[in-house]
C-alpha cells in the first residue's frame, strides 16, 4: 500500500509551508521522515493524517487495484483500508482498562454489531491471546488495570495501533514521552513486524540515532519540500543534509 502525494502544497496567508512535487510513503518497509525544526514536518504529518487540508494537490492511497483520494474518505474508512496513525499528543479511552482498550482495537468493527450482545464469550481466543502477548511484553504498573502515567498512555496508544494490524502505520514522534528502554522494545517489535511483511511503517522523529538504526529508507524534509531521499547511510553522508541539518 502506497501513500502518494502529487504537487502537494499548503500555505498559510500566502506563506508556503509545504510544497512537494511528488512523494511516496510505504514502498520501502520502515521509513523515516526527518528534518530540522520548521521544515514543515508537522504540517506534512497533518496533511497525511487529514488533520490539515491541502491548499493544492491531493493525497492518494494506492492499494494496488484501487486508488482512494484520502480527503474524500471518512476517518474510519481510512483505517479500514489499512492506514492508521499513532498520536503525538496523548489520547485514550479513560474508562477502558489497558487490556480492554487493546481488545477494542483488536476487534473487527463487524464483530461489534447488535448481535454481539448475545455472544457467549466477549472476546475470541485469538484476540485474548494477542492482547496478552502485547501486555506481557511491557512492564505496566498494573496489567489488569488502567494506564496511569503519561508514558503508559502513550505506550497503549502505540500498542492499539499495532494490534489493529494496519497495512501502513504512521508513527508521529513515538519516542516523545517514552523511556528509552520501552522505546527500544516498541521499535524492535515494529521492525519484526515489518520484516515479517505484516505492515509498512513511516516514523516522524527528532531522535536521529533511532532513525539511523531502524529505518530502511529516510525522507529528508527541509523548507517545505523533500530535499533528499535514500538509505540512512546515503542521507547521513549527504552534503545538503549536513548543511541544512546542523548537529548531524
Amino acid at each position: 500500500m502506497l501513500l502518494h502525494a502529487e504537487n502537494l502544497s499548503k500555505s498559510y496567508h500566502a506563506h508556503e509551508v509545504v510544497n512537494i512535487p511528488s512523494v511516496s510513503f510505504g514502498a520501502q518497509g520502515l521509513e523515516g521522515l526527518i528534518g530540522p525544526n520548521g521544515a514543515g514536518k508537522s504540517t506534512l504529518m497533518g496533511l497525511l493524517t487529514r488533520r490539515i487540508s491541502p491548499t493544492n494537490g491531493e493525497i492518494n492511497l494506492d492499494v494496488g487495484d484501487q486508488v482512494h483520494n484520502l480527503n474524500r474518505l471518512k476517518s474510519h474508512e481510512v483505517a479500514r483500508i489499512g492506514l492508521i496513525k499513532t498520536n503525538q499528543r496523548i489520547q485514550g479511552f479513560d474508562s477502558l482498562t489497558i487490556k480492554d482498550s487493546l481488545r477494542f482495537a483488536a476487534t473487527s468493527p463487524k464483530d461489534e454489531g447488535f448481535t454481539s450482545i448475545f455472544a457467549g464469550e466477549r472476546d475470541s481466543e485469538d484476540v485474548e491471546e494477542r492482547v496478552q502477548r502485547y501486555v506481557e511484553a511491557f512492564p505496566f504498573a498494573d496489567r489488569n488495570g488502567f494506564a496511569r502515567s503519561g508514558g503508559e498512555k502513550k505506550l497503549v496508544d502505540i500498542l492499539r495501533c499495532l494490534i489493529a494490524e494496519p497495512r501502513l502505520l504512521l508513527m508521529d514522534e513515538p519516542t516523545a514521552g517514552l523511556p528509552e528502554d520501552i522505546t527500544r522494545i516498541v521499535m524492535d517489535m515494529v521492525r519484526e513486524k515489518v520484516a515479517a511483511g505484516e505492515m509498512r511503517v513511516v516514523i516522524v522523529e527528532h531522535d536521529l540515532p533511532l532513525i539511523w538504526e531502524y529505518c530502511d529508507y529516510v525522507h529528508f524534509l527541509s523548507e517545505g519540500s523533500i530535499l533528499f531521499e535514500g538509505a540512512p547511510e546515503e542521507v547521513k553522508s549527504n552534503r545538503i543534509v549536513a548543511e541544512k541539518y546542523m548537529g548531524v
Partner: protein
Amino acid sequence: MDYLIFSFSLMLVYIGLAQLLHIQFGLLGIPNFGVVGFWGIGLYGTGVLFVEFSVPLLPSIILASGMSALLAYVLSVLVLQRSGQAILAATLALAAIVSTLVITEKQLTNGVQGLGTIGFPFGKLDNRNAIFLGILAIVVGSLFWGGARLRDSRLGRSMIAIRDNEELAASLGKDTSATKRMTFAFTCGLMGLLGGLSAPLHQFLVPYLLAPSLTFAVWIALVLGGKAHNFGAMVGVFATFGLFDILVETYAPVPTEYALLVPNFKLFCYGVLLVLIIMFRPTGILGEEGPRVRAKPAPPTLRSAPLEED
C-alpha cells in the same frame, strides 16, 4: 389498590425510560433531553391509531414505536455529530414540537379536550390492570437483562470507547456515527414502545402529559442512581418517584391544607438532590461499573510478571 397498581405501572415506565437513557447517555454519551418527545410519539401515536383509525392495540403500539424510532433516526442524521450542547438543544426542541403538534392537530388528537378512551387489553378479565402491570414488568425487566448483556459485550465496550473519545475510536476503523445513529434510533423506538404501553395506563390522553417535566424526572432519577451503572436507573427511580410519589403520597400523614404543596416540595427536593449528587458524587449512588467477564485461566506466559499482584 387500583391506585397503587397504577402507581407501580407508572413507576415501571419511568424505570424503563431511565434505563434507556442510561444506554444513550451513560454508555454512549448522547444527552437526550427529548425523552418525553419520543415517549409521547409512542403514546399519542398509539392513541390516535387506536381511537381514530380503530387499529387494534398491539399493532398500534408497534407502529407508533416505529414512528418514534424513525423520527429519532432522522434527527440523529441531522444533529448527532454536533456538539453535546447542540444535541441537547435539538432533542429538547423536538420534544417541544411534539407537544405543540399534539395541541394543534385537533382533528387527530382532539387537542386540549383530550383523546380517549384507550382501555386495557384482555377486556374480559377482572384483573386486567394487574396483568398489564406484569407485562410492563416483563418489558422493563428485559431492558435490564439487555443492559447487563450490553455491559459485558463488544458493542457495549465500543459504545464506552465512543463516549470517551469518538475521534480516536474512528481512527481505529470504527464507524462511530453509525453506531450512534442505530443505537439512538433503536433506544428511542423503545422509548416509544413504553409510550405506547402507557396509553392504556392513562386511558385518556391530554397534551399536559407531554410536558418536559417527564424528561427532567427521568434525568434526575438516572443521574441520582448512577448514569453508567446498569441498575442506576432503577435505584434512581426508587429514590425519587418511589419515595415521593408512592410512599409519601400514599402513606405520609400530610395535613390537607399542605397537600397542594407536596408536589412542589418534591420538585424542590429533586433540585437539592441533583445539586448535591453532582457536587459530591457525580457518578451517582451506585457509581460506575466495569464489564463482568468471566475470568479465564490466563494463558501460560513466557516470563513471570512481577507487578501482576492483584
